[in-house]
């Protein structure tokens, strides 16, 4: 009955000056949908609306549904929607392992949590990096820890906000591949906003254009 995936049901974001953005779409599990548009077209506001941190000067109409569940009235921490930004946004006051534990859902509890964190580090080729200060990691390592932290929180959808634009060309392809592969493997619907056609192409999913050249979508 419940429709799987992330659905934006006649979603409209209204700013002080009237409607800013209207979307009606569905992202299927394992699919990567790219939203493209120039800066100022409201891409980041859209993600904020889905996560549930829409700034108070905006108003939302329509619904956001995840696996058939209406998220619109839920606080962000109960939506189970993960988000990755261009910057890694690892918490600078916590170690790598503490960052991962912050994200790790419960259960596991107690000593099992340490084991789960270790396992994740192993899986991403970062074994032994747990006690490290995130500021001492390389760009690629930080991106991997950020992805790992999000996945450990057991999200049911993943949002990407220009996630790779801070990385150089080689790393970019690598990290992009990793994110898309992991998301697909878990069957997560992925909504990515980007202004880079390469990203959209690599995602090999549908592309929606918003803003002044929205017609192209």
């Amino acid at each position: 009955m419940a429709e799987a995936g992330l659905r934006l049901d006649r979603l409209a974001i209204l700013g002080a000056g009237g409607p800013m953005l209207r979307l009606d779409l569905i992202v299927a599990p394992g699919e990567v949908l790219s939203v493209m548009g120039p800066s100022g077209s409201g891409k980041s506001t859209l993600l904020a609306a889905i996560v549930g941190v829409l700034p108070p000067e905006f108003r939302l109409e329509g619904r956001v549904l995840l696996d058939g569940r209406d998220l619109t009235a839920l606080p962000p921490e109960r939506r189970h929607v993960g988000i990755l930004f261009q910057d890694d946004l690892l918490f600078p006051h916590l170690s790598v392992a503490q960052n991962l534990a912050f994200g790790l859902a419960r259960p596991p509890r107690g000593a099992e949590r340490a084991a789960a964190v270790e396992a994740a580090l192993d899986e991403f080729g970062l074994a032994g990096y747990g006690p490290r200060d995130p500021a001492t990691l390389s760009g690629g390592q930080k991106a991997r820890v950020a992805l790992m932290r999000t996945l450990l929180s057991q999200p049911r959808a993943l949002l990407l906000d220009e996630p790779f634009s801070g990385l150089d060309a080689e790393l970019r392809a690598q990290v992009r591949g990793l994110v898309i592969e992991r998301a697909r493997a878990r069957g997560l619907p992925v909504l990515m906003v980007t202004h880079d056609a390469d990203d959209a192409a690599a995602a090999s999913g549908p592309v929606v254009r918003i803003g002044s050249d929205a017609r192209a979508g």
Partner: protein
Amino acid sequence: MTEATRPGAALRVRPRRGRRGLHLLPAMTLAVMLGPVAAGLLGTLAPAFGILPAAGLVEPGLGAFRDLLGWPGLPRATLLSLWTGLAATAASLAIVTMIAACWQGTRTFAVVERLLSPLLSVPHAAAAFGIAFLIAPSGWVARVLSPWLTRWERPPDLLIVQDPAGLALIAGLIAKEVPFLMLMTIAALGQVEARRSVLVAQSLGYGRETAWLQVVLPRVYAQIRLPVYVVLAFSMTVVDVAVILGPNTPPTLSVQVVRWIGDPDLALRLRAAAGAVLQLALVVGALGLWRLGELAVAALGRRWVWSGRRGTSMRLVRPIAVAMAAGSGAAVLLGLAGLALWSVAGFWTYPDALPEGLTLRTWQRFAPALAETAAETGIIAAVATLAALVLTIGCLEAEHRYGLRMTRRAMWLLYLPLLVPQVAFLPGLQMLMLQAGASTGLDAVIAAHVVFVLPYVFLSLGDPFRAWDSRHGTVAHALGAGPDRVLWAVRLPMLLAPVLTAAAVGFAVSVGQYLPTLLIGGGRVQSLTTEAVALASGGDRRAIGAYALAQTAAALLPFALALAVPRLVFAQRRGLRHG
């Protein structure tokens, strides 16, 4: 089965995040701050217009004002308040502007920045004592230079400290207000990208100082306007510094008002209230005058910009700027050194540059009393600061969660307790509290301190709190953390350094409070500051030295902790080193 798949799960969730009264906090905070000010003003206005029910006076009248006008010292005292306030503010602002225009981005400027915190934390009264001893005709400077250079075998009979024109008072105020305005300016500079603007202007052929004055100053001034007003209002109405450095024939209006309040004759209470109302009007008038001055300077500035004159180099101003800033800093630091020396001095007479011998007698004598007073001072400051921090963080968090952002007008309200002269509302507040049967012990003093501590804590913490990258919050939410967990586990730890700095600022402000402690405490609450000022009436430099040093230490220690604690806690976290 997880919650999401349970049918109707979403319907059972309340549509709004748990508010728990947090959204009421901004209004409550304003009430905590403005309530006492408003009540106190009423308590002052009524007797000024002849209404003092306790003495059976209920008919309004202007007798108190007539009585005030009959006081022969009024014209001079009024002029003195205006002159010292305006002169101290203008000079402080000029020094700060010169330093920033000439030296921003240089190593000299970095040194200035580093010296700020210690200078800021020196309480006004302690700085004033130090300066008084430094510049008096029998003071340290004269002693070092005499008699070999000055030929003064005995101290010259020169009217330097407590001069009728208030020059010593102005100097003492400048020495303390320059660091404050400097701090505000540095904070503002960060927001206006000053370096890049100056670079652009320089590439268009303007000298550095000219460029700074034309493209940076207008934007910086817009940011520091309120602090400048605070400096003006404070300088016009300060009591403790004026008692130490200001004239007495007559004193400034605020000092005289406090003397009348202390007189057993009830009639003088009315006169004091009328004087307080006059003081309030004076401050309002001076602020208006200052505003007109701002407009005039701005008009001149626009003409200057339009003229396109590149201006010859202002290189000559640079050493003057440094000399002025160094002079005001050195006055405070050397003055403190002099007090430190007095506190361990044996007999020390003019013109010896150093005491005949050193002794710990003074400290041994005062140690027990000092410890007790320091503990009370610390308790008041700690509780007041904690309350101010809780309210500030609550307000800022409410602003973040519900978008209850402070309007410009609300910012003015925040500054109001710093703009309204203390003598205009504290006596009224004291009277009202007595009439309401409220206790006048420690708790009342703490509550009064919060009124003055809160604005500074808010100003200190507001910018870093808002500048925090809220995407960290978004990520944490998306990872399943509720708003409270985000606040406690992510935001506050990341903001540890600015939170502690704000706490240190609040602590120092509380330690330095004189009138609120004296009046609201009813004499039963003694702080290092009230003790030091009471001792000042006696003039025992050894005792004053010991108390002023203790007072400075009480204010300085939290700053040291605010610097050290984040470094220790986050020794292994490079990402927070520059936070």
